Each structure stands twice: as structure tokens, then as C-alpha cells.
């Protein structure tokens, strides 16, 4: 499948087994979209739940997600502005839920992601940092508590309560799949610090001096012109 528009990470899973459909290019934009497609029959009156584990370099905007057609719960670092060096080194957890409508499939979950500026590299040259993003765990939660022997995937205790009386049906992955997407993000390098520091200061101070000179010239011209006008 071709990559369309902005970088998309695509996986495709159905209720029986997973059919991965991976984008050709390693996503490198700072705003990739993680797209997961579910195809399947049955599971009437159930909710489909998709659990993401996001490494610190990746974050979601909860305000952006609130405009989507699914509900969500988010735990962990959520700051929208800091680089990765300034946030806690812990993963965030995101659980998306939506009622499953068997007629309305394949059902596509689009999760807009954002990438923080990564850790500054220590070597010269163009640096990148690779981040592995695990495929989300997915499961159906159905009202009849006795009809399945599956148990919840590993999720934070605070997210367990809504599923206490539900039957859980795990959406599996095929045994030969590598359920990891890889993000490749450009990073700055400390080798640039000296040049950037000095270069910025020199240009700013030179521009400052230039404008001071022009301003003085303008003040003199305006004063002279005003005096001449008065004398006239």
C-alpha cells in the first residue's frame, strides 16, 4: 500500500488474526498518523478498545483527540511543548474506545501523533534518533462476563475498572509479525553549539550596529530637514 499524504504508520488487524499493512517509508515527519484498521464480524454490543504505549519522545494532544469519534483516556507525560530531554523518562498510556458496529467495517482508528525534539546528538554530521513504537494492544469488551477466557492486556490499574464485568476478546497478532513501527527523527548535534552560539551573537550584534548607524543618519536628516523647513 502506498503512503498517502503525511507519514502514516499503518497496521491492519481483524478479529480473527492480524493482517499487517505497513507503510513503505519509515515515518520521519514530526506529525505522523498511526492508522490501525480493524475488520471483523460479530462482537455486537461490544466496545473495541485500543491501547497504545507511547515512549517519551512521542505525545498526543488530548484537545485534538477530543474532536475525534472515539473516547480516550490518557496517563503519563502529556506536556505539549517540551523537548524530550525536559520530560520524565516514562511511557504514556493511551486507551481509545469506541462501540463496535459490525456493519461499519473495516473500521479505521487514526491516531495523530506528535514528536518532540529529540535528544541532542554528540557526533558531527546529520543525526537521527530511532524510536520503536509498539503496535497497540486491542481487545473487545463485551457485556456477557462469562463468554471468554481472555484476560485484559497489561494496562494501568486506573483503567481496569470499566472492564471489571466484561468479557474480553483479545485481537491477536500473527506469529510471524514484528509488531513494531519505527520512527526516525532528526536531532541537533552538540558539535553545532559553538558555531551557532558565536554566529547568532555576531549576526545579532552586527545587525544591531548597522541599525544604530542608520537610525543616527535618519535622526540627523530629519533634524536638518525640519530646521530647514522652519527657516523657509
Amino acid at each position: 500500500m502506498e503512503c498517502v499524504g503525511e507519514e502514516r504508520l499503518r497496521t491492519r488487524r481483524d478479529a480473527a488474526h492480524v493482517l499487517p499493512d505497513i507503510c513503505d517509508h519509515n515515518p520521519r515527519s514530526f506529525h505522523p498518523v498511526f492508522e490501525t484498521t480493524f475488520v471483523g464480524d460479530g462482537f455486537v454490543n461490544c466496545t473495541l478498545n485500543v491501547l497504545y504505549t507511547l515512549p517519551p519522545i512521542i505525545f498526543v494532544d488530548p484537545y485534538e483527540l477530543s474532536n475525534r469519534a472515539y473516547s480516550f483516556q490518557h496517563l503519563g507525560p502529556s506536556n505539549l511543548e517540551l523537548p524530550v530531554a525536559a520530560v520524565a523518562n516514562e511511557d504514556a498510556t493511551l486507551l481509545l474506545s469506541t462501540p463496535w458496529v459490525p456493519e461499519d467495517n473495516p473500521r479505521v482508528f487514526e491516531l495523530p501523533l506528535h514528536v518532540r525534539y529529540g535528544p541532542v546528538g554528540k557526533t558531527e554530521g546529520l543525526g537521527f534518533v530511532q524510536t520503536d513504537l509498539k503496535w497497540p494492544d486491542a481487545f473487545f469488551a463485551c457485556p456477557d462476563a462469562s463468554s471468554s477466557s481472555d484476560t485484559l492486556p497489561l494496562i494501568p490499574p486506573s483503567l481496569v475498572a470499566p472492564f471489571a464485568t466484561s468479557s474480553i476478546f483479545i485481537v491477536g497478532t500473527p506469529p510471524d509479525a514484528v509488531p513494531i513501527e519505527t520512527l526516525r527523527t532528526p536531532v541537533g548535534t552538540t558539535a553545532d553549539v559553538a558555531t551557532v552560539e558565536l554566529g547568532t551573537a555576531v549576526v545579532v550584534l552586527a545587525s544591531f550596529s548597522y541599525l544604530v548607524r542608520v537610525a543616527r543618519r535618519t535622526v540627523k536628516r530629519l533634524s536638518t530637514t525640519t530646521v530647514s523647513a522652519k527657516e523657509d
Partner: protein
Amino acid sequence: MLSLLSFRHVLVFSIIIRVGLILYSEWHDARSVVKYTDVDYRVFSDAARFLLNAENRAQGPLGAKFAVGDPYTRETYRYTPLLALLLTPNEWLHPSFGKYLFAACDVLNGLLIYDLSLSSTSKDIAVLCSALHLLNPLVFAISTRGSSESVLSLFVLFTLYAALKGHWDIAAVALGLSTHWKIYPVIYGVACLGVIGHAGSARGWKAYWRALVNPQTVRFTALSASTFLCLSAACYSIWGYPFLYESYLYHLHRLDHRHNFSPYFYLIYLTYPALEPSAPLDLPLWNRLLRSPLTSFVPQMTLAIGAGFAFGRRKEYLVFTLFVQTVVFVVFNKVCTSQYFLWYLLLLPLLLPRLSMTRWKIALSVGVWVGTQALWLSEAYKLEFLGENVFFGLWIRGLLYVVGNCWVLAQVMDAYVVPSKAKI
């Protein structure tokens, strides 16, 4: 009569454009993942919603008494709570109310520009000046996308309007309101003082000092400062420390590490304080000086305030002075996005009749101004959406942006013609 009809045409056309774009934005956003509406509009709207929700209590001493919510619950809302208050009809009237409000401010700005231009130029030129604002794609795109810059522009223009009409008390209050809305208009106070005190007629330092410090200038300063303090005190009493921090204190210490026009972004990113520093840095003095905020702040404020003192001496120079002050503030700021350009583009239509430039110089200046932005934007696209490592190249383009804009400003200063027998 012909010119009056032409201005009406400009006005009507500009209103049609804005209403059309707002209606289009609703249609587009409902169908596309890539939104026409600016992210900031969502921030304002969310803040307005939080403000209406009294359960989410405002944290000031009088917050409970007024039963209003806290707009600062919304992450990244760093504006006066009055903006969220203005946009509360987004919740109970229509989600696009704010856009219509911003567009209306645009149109009012156009009216003010027309009226001010009429005072010193012919009707045809006045129509052209107002059209430069009202029909400027950057202006109507920004307001219809939901950016609130037009509100501050209205306050700034009104300050200028009142000053040029000699209504200094009103100008003082408007300046205080502008400064409450965003801090940077405080720099205009210096220019106003020089004009009030007729500094242009002062000969020698003593006379200049008397021009700056006299009963009229003290009155202006007191009125302006009181307006700012009263508004801030009222907001603090209701919304507490979050208002103080998000509206003002945050901006004193902000570190904008993500790419923007300012070349400072890359150094900020490379030296961003880590949450868990690995080892204390022991930098030599010259390093610490180069990294000090003073290296950026001193040139910026020296030029911005210095231009106010240097040029703010006659009422006829006021538009030129404010323009120069604003450009240097924006160019030397540690962060700069496209919206900042509106701060000085607002004043350009009023300044243009006072510039004497050859067509070649005009074309070159416009070319450099646009070209440096285009150079930067093309590289920024590669970084943001293609993930190419172009940090260093983007920094170089940031330097070109600074140099290019300084050169253009120098051309404007050299081209400025003393207004003779101005009607103002």
C-alpha cells in the same frame, strides 16, 4: 464622491471575503483532517469553555464570588482572561463567533486606517491605504483562521488614532489596555512621551529632559500605568497566580526551542535545560555571555526603546516611530512566527505615503522581505513534514531573515520623508 464609493466597495468586498472564508472554514474543517482553523482558536475556545464552567473554579481571591471558571486549565492558554471572556459566545451562540469578532476587528482597523489617512492624504490614497490592510491576504487569512491578533491591532491602532487626534488621555488608557493584552506595546509609551512633550523643539539635554518629564507626560504615564494595573489587579483578584504567570511571567522566561523564524531557536534547543542534568556545566565567561538572555534582550530593547526616544519627537513622526519600534522588536525577538508580522504590517499602510523610494528599491525591498521568509519556510517544511535533518540550514536561514529584515528596515528609514504641512 467617487473616492467615497470606492472605499465603500473596498469595505463591502473585504467583509464578503471574511464572511466567505469563515463559512468555508466551517465546511472545510468538517470534512478534512487538515484544518483551516488555527490551533490557537481551539485553545481560545477551550479556555472560554473552562471559564464558563464554574465548577472549574478560578483561583483568585474573588474567584468563588464571581462564580467563573479558570481558563488557564487549558494547557498553552497564555493570554489575558479577557480574551476567553470575549469568546464565551463560542459556547452558547456559535462556535465561529470568535472568528466573526476577529474579522470585525480587522474591518474596524481598516476604517481607522482610512480615517487617519484622510487626515494627511487625498481620498484616493486613503482608499488605497485602507485597501492595503483590508484586502491583504495575510491579514484576512489570519483573522478568519481564528487568530486573535486583530483585537490587539485594534487597541494599538486606536491608541495611535487618539494620539494623532490629540486625545492623549484616551490614548493613555488605550495604551494601558494594549499592554495588558500583550506586553510589547509598552514600548510605544516612550514615543508618546516625546510627542506630548514636544521633544522635537528641545535643544540640549536639559530641555529634552524637561520635554520628557513634565505634568502632561506624567499624567499620560500615570493614566496608562493605572489602566494596566487596574486591569491586571482585577484579573488577578479573580483568576489569581495562574493569570499572572501565564499572561506575563511565562513570557519572561520562555524557551522556544522549536523552529521559528528567529535564529535563537537552534541554540535554545541545543542547550535546553534537561530534566535530569548529567553534570553541572562549567562554561567560560565568554560562553556564558553569549548564552545570556541579555545578548538578545539588550539589542532588542535598546533599539525598540531607543527608536522611541530618537524619532518620537513630533506628532508627524509617530506612525514612523511606532513602525520602526515594532519591526526591531519583532526581528530581534527570541521567537518569531508569521503572526508577529501583523504587528508592523498594520502600520505600513499609514507609513507608505511618507516613503520616497524608486520602484527598483521597492521591488528589491519587497523581494528581500518575502524571499527571506520563503527561504526559511521551504527549509522548515523539510524539517517538520519530511523529517530531514536541516537544523543547521534552518538556523542559517534564520540569520538571513534577521539580516534581510534589518536591511529592509534601513531602506524604509532612508526613504522616510518629513511630512510637510501635515493636516494632523
